[in-house]
């Protein structure tokens, strides 16, 4: 089926099989491999992207379902060479170790702060319920998001 999407501001059109997930489409057709696939069953959140401004798990969306949408992936967060404040905060606060979960964490964090710019620590922790990290113990991830919020609200 012919689909078209605006991804990180650029419009793409492809003929895809209906059974291909958005995550596969991003990674395998567009080579946007920043969107990771961990569990592939909607549990871990490493595939999180934004679809029309809202965080979603790309492994559990068929590309055809989001035909015509605006998608933002981790590759679309930085402004040229300048990291997005959330990315910068993860770097400064040791919010990552192996980095596998990080793209999903950053995308979910952006959704949390968009809807609740002054999210409390507890609200951030609840907001991350759908994202697993095997390395950090979450502490520095939460700290990163709190720091990012301070910068973004300043």
């Amino acid at each position, binding site marked *: 089926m012919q689909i078209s999407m605006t991804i990180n501001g650029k419009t793409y059109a492809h003929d895809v099989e209906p059974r291909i997930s958005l995550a596969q489409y991003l990674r395998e057709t567009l080579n946007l491999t920043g969107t990771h696939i961990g569990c592939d*069953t909607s549990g871990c959140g490493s595939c999180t992207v934004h679809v029309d401004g809202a965080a979603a798990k790309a492994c*559990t969306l068929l590309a055809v*379902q989001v035909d015509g949408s605006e998608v933002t992936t981790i590759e679309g967060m930085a402004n040229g060479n300048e990291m997005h404040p959330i990315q910068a905060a993860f770097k400064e606060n040791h919010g990552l170790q192996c980095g596998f979960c990080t793209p999903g964490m950053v995308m979910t964090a952006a959704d949390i702060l968009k809807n609740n710019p002054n999210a409390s620590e507890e609200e951030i922790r609840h907001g991350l319920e759908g994202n697993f990290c095997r390395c950090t113990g979450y502490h520095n991830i939460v700290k990163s998001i709190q720091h990012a919020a301070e910068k973004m609200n300043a």
Partner: protein
Amino acid sequence: MIPAKFDYKRASSVSEAISLLGEHGSEAKVVSGGHSLVPAMKLRMSRPEVLIDIKRIPGLDTITEEGDEIVIGANCTHSQVMRSEVVQNHLNIVYQAVSKIGDVQIRNRGTIGGSLAHADPSSDYPAVVLACDATIEVEGKEGKRSIPATEFFLGLFWTALAEEEIITAIRFPKVANGTYQKFFQSASRFAVVGVAAVQDGDGVKVGITGVAGTPYRATAVEDAYSGSADAAEHAVDGLEDLMSDHFADETYRAHLAKVMVKKALDAL
């Protein structure tokens, strides 16, 4: 993981969805958020040959106040319901339940219609529609009908929906005093036990999910409520399909049901 092959069709109206369902029969399935169906298709537990996407049908994603009632369109996502002021003000029990569904990403895609049609025995909405005495509005080949929530759930993943019917909206009476209490399964965040309770004059209406294969109204609790301080003890009276799994065996689950009903009654 990749689903088995299927044809994808997008319906632009309820009548088109119904005629596509009629055309393809039991080979077809509708999809809305896809957050129950797509995982099942990836695991090949579900292999529809035709997928009919109803998510873009205009008019199925609105929340409206109609006198003493609130009507929530079938395609409303959990996030949309959660953020609705009408829901927060007049149907706070629904707000409490949806804000406990899954996680941010799931709530951004999953829908009320999909959740009810799927009838997962551990999902949250069933308890709430039961306690609220909501009505499920459906449309099919034979026209429209309204199914009372108490007649909607027939068993495990089984509802009163006919093969060629789709849910268009859920009609709730406004609820002044209601509560939803959920005991989370710690990995999946689904309910091990979920209890919805609504104050009804001097009485109470109680809907329970997670405990039995079919969500149910705890009528024994409701009958005992006004007279007895230990009404919650009747939470599983007469139940025949008590669930048991590695998270909660029958004895534990029955006990937890009583504890959660007590919590709900105390919270009213």
